[in-house]
């Protein structure tokens, strides 16, 4: 993905590249930071630094050549690897790669495996063959295209090569390696890992080869990504689980051969087939990752106060350092996470779950008020909303792989820079919404050829309307329930008074018992009110927000379409210019015009492909969303029914206890 965008002219790359670089700076700092500090202390945790350190270099070994295979001249890649600032490069490429490596978390992807061999082949083929003749200016590009096989081979040759090269250049890389070694000494069991790593590479290398060989006419983009995926997958898996023994690795290996499938399908041109696969994949998509947010705590005083939440994660996923870990995060950190994720992923058509909105009113209350029930309610509401938000993020297979997500869950301290983003976090949301609106006005211009999208866009709009309506209904339901609870309390009180004034002792007793029963019923109503609220009102609010995000995805797709159309128009203009030149018989300028046409033809092809890819991604995302939605609602309905059932059972208990009292009246 990054590979293709790299080459694209403004506005696209302009907006992307700086972001990536920025990001990677942070990431790099973070990593080196930990590694240095950890290195000093040979604590039991020191097994980790080697992993990180190790993780990085191989990653760039693998990813660099791969992601650049076609889009960038080979030398550029080479130049990057030995450079001392290679860390930057690492992150720059590893980010997009992580998107694709989602597959790892879902070991069941194996079934799409056959497609890996078939689909990609036909997809790129048509691209290449369908392309107009390559002209001289495009020589470099074309050589890339046809020299693809070489690249592929490079790809497998290169890793060892670079690794051995690594120590040669002066600077950080050397340190990195020596560090590893020193750590290895401290912790004997880690020793396996480097060897494993290479063994694994060796194992993986042959695997993709047949597929690479089978498609001799591969172009950039599609294919290279698959390769990324392979290498990425192996490296990540083997390195992220330094303590895992052989057995575990073997278990991982089978999945390694398959991971390319989703990417392949996302870029493939046979959506109907893919969709089915995706559905299958989704339905089996289960992972073991529990996130809970607890202990909201006010930190600081006055207007600078903020709430900190305990984010606890429980997982058996090997990508995390341990099975359980806890960090403290504040609200702006959550916004910051969203911001980072949307910067990186939204242009690819991913659906980024939106965090709860910033509420100045609610937070001010918390800051000012001491022990106000409404502010306690606000805090609880936000806590639950943040929990749902995080759960949605990690349940997204691609987002789970994002280093920022992992960092958010694992890292003790997040870069404080986030605090300045707090405001811009809210602003960012607004900005996004505005952009969304602006783009949606464009909708009219875009004549939709894809019926599925046409219907879906309409559906989403309708659904949003419906959900809003339902939300209003539920609000009134909750309010009535609260009113009922209040009235019941008052009634209980008046019955108690009546009982205390009654002469007949048995009747008096029964009445005060009744008052107690009514008090309990009041409690039930109150619980039910908050159940109504949390199961439905908040659920609906969440989904109204999520539908906004879905629309954002559609807009991203439209942007891609717009870019493609613009390029198409430009190409048309260039062709007309060429025709004019031909007619005017100006051969000197003709060559330049022809070059330009080729350039734009390539761009058109690229944008079209991008559009198709983003369409496929959005489609996949929306299907995933719909599935999740149905499942989520069903879960909530079950929860609601359970609460109803519980209420009735309590009622039965209360009445059963009261009946003898009433009968005892003489």
């Amino acid at each position, binding site marked *: 993905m990054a590979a293709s965008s790299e080459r694209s002219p403004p506005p696209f790359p302009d907006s992307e590249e700086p972001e990536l670089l920025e990001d990677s700076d942070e990431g790099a700092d973070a990593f080196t930071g930990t590694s240095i500090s950890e290195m000093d202390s040979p604590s039991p945790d020191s097994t980790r630094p080697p992993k990180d350190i190790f993780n990085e270099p191989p990653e760039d070994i693998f990813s660099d050549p791969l992601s650049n295979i076609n889009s960038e001249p080979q030398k550029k890649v080479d130049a990057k690897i030995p450079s001392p600032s290679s860390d930057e490069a690492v992150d720059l490429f590893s980010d997009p790669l992580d998107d694709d490596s989602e597959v790892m978390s879902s070991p069941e992807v194996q079934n799409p495996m056959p497609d890996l061999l078939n689909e990609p082949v036909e997809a790129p083929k048509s691209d290449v063959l369908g392309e107009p003749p390559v002209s001289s200016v495009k020589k470099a590009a074309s050589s890339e295209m046809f020299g693809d096989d070489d690249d592929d081979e490079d790809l497998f040759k290169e890793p060892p090569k670079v690794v051995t090269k690594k120590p040669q250049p002066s600077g950080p890389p050397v340190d990195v390696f020596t560090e590893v070694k020193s750590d290895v000494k401290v912790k004997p069991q880690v020793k396996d890992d480097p060897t494993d790593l290479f063994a694994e590479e060796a194992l993986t290398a042959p695997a993709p080869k047949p597929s690479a060989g089978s498609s001799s006419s591969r172009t950039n983009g599609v294919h290279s990504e698959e390769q990324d995926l392979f290498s990425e997958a192996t490296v990540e898996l083997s390195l992220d689980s330094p303590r895992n023994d052989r057995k575990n690795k073997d278990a991982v290996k089978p999945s390694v051969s398959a991971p390319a499938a989703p990417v392949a399908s996302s870029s493939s041109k046979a959506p109907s087939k893919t969709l089915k696969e995706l*559905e299958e994949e989704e339905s089996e998509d289960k992972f073991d990752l529990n996130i809970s947010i607890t202990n909201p705590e006010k930190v600081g005083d006055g207007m600078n106060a903020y709430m900190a939440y305990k984010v606890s994660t429980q997982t058996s996923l090997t990508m995390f350092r341990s099975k359980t870990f806890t960090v403290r995060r504040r609200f702006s950190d959550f916004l910051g996470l969203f911001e980072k994720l949307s910067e990186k992923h939204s242009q690819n058509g991913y659906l980024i779950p939106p965090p709860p909105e910033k509420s100045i009113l609610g937070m001010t209350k918390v800051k000012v008020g001491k022990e106000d029930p409404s502010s306690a309610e606000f805090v609880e509401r936000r806590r639950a909303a943040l929990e749902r938000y995080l759960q949605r993020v990690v349940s997204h297979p691609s987002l789970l792989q994002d280093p920022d997500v992992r960092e958010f869950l694992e890292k003790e301290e997040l870069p404080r820079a986030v605090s300045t983003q707090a405001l811009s976090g809210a602003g960012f949301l607004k900005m996004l919404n505005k952009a969304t609106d602006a783009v949606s006005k464009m909708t009219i211009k875009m004549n939709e050829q894809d019926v599925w999208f046409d*219907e879906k866009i309409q*559906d989403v709009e309708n*659904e949003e309307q*419906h*959900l809003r*309506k*339902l939300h209003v*209904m*539920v609000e*009134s*339901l909750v309010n*009535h*329930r609260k*009113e*009922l609870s209040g*009235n*019941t309390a*008052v*009634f209980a009180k*008046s*019955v108690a*008074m*009546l009982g205390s*004034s*009654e*002469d*007949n002792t*048995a*009747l008096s007793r*029964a009445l005060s018992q*009744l008052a107690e029963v009514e008090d309990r019923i009041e409690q039930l109503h109150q619980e039910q009110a908050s159940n109504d609220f949390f199961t439905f009102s908040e659920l609906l609010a969440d989904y109204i927000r999520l539908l906004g995000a879905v629309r954002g995805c559609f807009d991203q797709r439209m942007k891609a379409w717009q870019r493609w159309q613009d390029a198409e128009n430009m190409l048309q203009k260039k062709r007309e210019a060429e025709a004019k030149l031909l007619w005017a018989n100006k051969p000197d300028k003709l060559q330049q015009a022809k070059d330009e046409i080729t350039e734009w033809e390539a761009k058109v092809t690229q944008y079209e492909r991008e559009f198709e890819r983003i369409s496929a991604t959005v489609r996949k995302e929306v*299907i995933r969303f*719909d*599935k999740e*939605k*149905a*499942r989520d*609602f*069903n879960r909530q*309905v*079950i929860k*609601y*029914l*359970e609460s*109803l*059932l519980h209420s*009735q*059972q309590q*009622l*039965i208990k209360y*009445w*059963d206890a*009261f*009946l003898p009292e*009433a*009968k005892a*009246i*003489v």
Partner: protein
Amino acid sequence: MEVSSAEAALSVSASSIRITDVTQDGDVLTFALTSQKLDSSAGVCVFRIYEDFDWLQQSLFSQENLPGLQGIIFPPLPSKALPSQSNTQTKALKQLGFLALGQDWQSYCKALEFYLQQVAAHPTLCKCKALDSFLFNSESPGKQRGRKGIFNRLSQAVEEMRKESHKDVDNFFQNERNKNTNLAALSKVATEKLLDVVMTEQKLALACGHFSTSLHLCVNQDDASAVAFSKVCLKLSDVIEAVKRNLEKVASNNLSTLGLGLDLESRYQEAEKEMLFRRTCKLIELETVKKGTEKAKANKREVLEAFQKAVEKEFNLISSVAKQEIERFHSSHVNVLKNFLIGWCEVQLNTAKEFAELYSQHLEACRNMYSE
């Protein structure tokens, strides 16, 4: 509900009195009344309007040759329902409380029925000729009304405050008055609060209805996932519908048992209060007569003393009747409340059980939906 105490004069079994039907014609409600004479197995059915009930009540008030009449606690007659105005529900609610609720004036009929049963079960009142003609005469007796009862509350309203706080000579009655004032106020409040609860339950049921209907909007059959989602929505719609029915049932349970019971209780307390007030009035009258006698000159004294004796006798008679009535009222009110409480508890228990069953069925269905 006390079954008639088998007085010879009573020709009707109190428990057989039923209001079986009510028809509304404009502003007039006509009640179909069935009862059974003790000496025959055949039932008698008559049609009565509210004015007839009013006539009966006035007749009871103005019975002649009945010593100590003023000491009797008359069963309270619900105030008149104005069906055509009932569209302004708040007004009807204010006037009638619980009796304005319920479908087709059911609770109002219940209250009237209860009133008749109480009259028929009363050891003194059941002997009144008016009751006989009310129950069995096919001619509507209401037309021959005209005698305004002697106990017109309206005229007393001003004096009431002053007289009600008048200190009693008898501790028993002083205590009873205090308690009665207290209980009357409390039971009224309790009734109103329960009414609030029932009203909110009905509102909530309505809101559930809206929610349940709106859920149908989300139904969409486009593709597999939409169908799945639609299924969930429909299921939820069913569930909410069940919640709605539950609330309606609970509300109508509250209304038809405890609601009516508390309403009756509060009106009965009011009736006792009136009786006590009448007695207090008599007491004040007696005291003024006494004072007058003391101050009176010798020539008039004899007449006044005779008058005072008459008043004193009447007062004592009223007091003794009142004492009996109060005792009777106490036991019957405990009994009535007990029955309402038991009835209420039982229906609520049944409802809770019924819906617990229903909810667990829904729950089962929901769980199966995804495990398939």
